[in-house]
């Protein structure tokens, strides 16, 4: 029997279940080398380094979880990958093998699920999903109805497509936000603590739905998932990257070679959670 969870040394380790297909542009869907990102200090005096000489590579079709204390720059990393933030310096800044700086349109193949659903309250759930389709110019347009029907169906919202956000629960709003991301059929899915504002029962349900959505496609999408919840990280991730406080560095990587669904009462899951707790306490200075 193989060890279900094991630590690796490099930031570019292969995921536990590498897909057979790779992106056309190279072996990695996301490749960051020597990235430095500085934020101006609130008082305007100098800058605050968020990342310094940071490296990360993400395999196509993998489910990578970024785990770390609040404020360490996990969400910032997703924003860099989505082209929403430009680093001060980077040797390599590639998404799907294309340089973000010279080819920013490549991020049309990324879709983002935010911490809050961020739905437009004046649009129905269907209208919100169409907003994403229109923005990312998903073609052909004739497929939109079929795509929406399919993904709303998967998350159990087919009967609620014409409701406004205030007419449905927070969990349903977040489901709609997930549909907005998936329906574009993005190559890369960026998820920033999407379940952190939900109650535990709804969050657990949505995690199961996410895994179902992710595993249903023959060519799996690449997922980068940010969380500070260790249990969530182990339940979802094939590869867990632990970040230190700012300036963030990768202090540990864990490959989780366990089948889905994963439950906290599984001793193998529990063992990995314990490892991560120890790592966060010892290397990231966080008591969990």
């Amino acid at each position, binding site marked *: 029997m193989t060890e279900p969870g094991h630590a690796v040394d490099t930031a570019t380790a292969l995921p536990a279940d590498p897909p057979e297909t790779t992106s056309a542009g190279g072996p990695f869907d996301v490749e960051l080398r020597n990235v430095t990102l500085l934020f101006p200090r609130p008082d305007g005096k100098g800058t605050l380094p968020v990342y310094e000489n940071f490296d990360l590579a993400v395999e196509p079709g993998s489910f990578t979880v970024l785990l770390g204390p609040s404020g360490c720059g996990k969400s910032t990393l997703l924003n860099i990958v989505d082209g929403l933030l430009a680093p001060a310096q980077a040797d390599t800044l590639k998404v799907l093998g294309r340089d973000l700086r010279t080819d920013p349109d490549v991020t049309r193949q*990324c879709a983002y699920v*935010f911490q809050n659903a961020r739905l*437009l309250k004046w649009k129905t759930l269907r209208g919100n999903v169409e907003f994403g389709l229109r*923005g*990312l110019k998903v073609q052909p347009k004739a497929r939109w109805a079929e795509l929406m029907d399919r993904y709303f169906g998967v998350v159990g919202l087919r009967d609620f497509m014409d409701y406004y956000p*205030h007419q449905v629960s927070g969990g349903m709003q977040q489901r709609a936000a997930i549909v907005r991301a998936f329906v574009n059929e993005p190559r890369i899915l960026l998820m920033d603590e999407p379940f952190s504002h939900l109650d535990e029962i709804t969050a657990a349900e949505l995690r199961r739905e996410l895994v179902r959505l992710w595993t249903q496609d023959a060519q799996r999408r690449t997922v980068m998932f940010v969380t500070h919840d260790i249990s969530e990280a182990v339940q979802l991730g094939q590869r867990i990257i632990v970040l230190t406080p700012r300036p963030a560095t990768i202090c540990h990587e864990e490959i989780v070679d366990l089948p889905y669904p994963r439950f906290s009462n599984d001793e193998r899951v529990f063992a990995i959670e314990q490892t991560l707790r120890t790592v966060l306490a010892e290397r990231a200075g966080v008591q969990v």
Partner: protein
Amino acid sequence: MQDRLAQLASIVAVILVWGAMSAVIGSSILPGPVDVAPRFAELITTGAFLEPLLESLVRTGVGFVVGFVSGIALGIVIAKVRWFEVAFTPLLDVALFAPTLVVIFLGIAIIGTQLLAVAIITGIAVAPNVAIYMRDVMRDFDPEMTAMADSYRAGRWQRVRDVYLPYLVPPMLAAARIGFSMAWKVVLLSEVFGFSGGLGFQIRINYGIYDLVSLLAWLCIFVIALLLIEQLIRSTEKTVVRWQP
């Protein structure tokens, strides 16, 4: 239905209070609803109310459009352009606190009793209030929505149509309500003090001859017209922003 009954009850209550006050003070000083009703009915049935009302409405409409459009534009630009805010905020404060009567007198003295004077006077009265309201609304815009639109690569037109405009419509309607009621009052005052026509003029001449019954009958027409317009704006609001809880 309940809302309608409540509205009706409040109007009946106002009429009752008016009647009670008239009974206490004396109908020669404050004519009551029963004294005013025949004159009011006469103005309505003979159609005598129509010309002054239309005259006031045209003045209010023109003044309101000038004040509202410039106020909306000013508010949005102030919220978005830093130097514009620095340059215009003191001017806005002055316009906001300038006594409306002084503006009316100055406007009539400088421009005369033309439609242009009403447009400028009302514009000066309405625009600062609308501008400040819209500036604050723009500042309250959730930056997370901008980030969402950035992330989904929404183009400029898509943002305007699907994000900014729907966000701005409810406050714009609220600003329209505030602006219109203000324009209505400014026009009435302008007519009282300088114009030879409109509801305000009717109020002035009736006050001049101490015909309080006619004065109050015209005032009733003014109030009813204001309530009807307010109702119209509310109905538009309900249709346009039916997504609101």
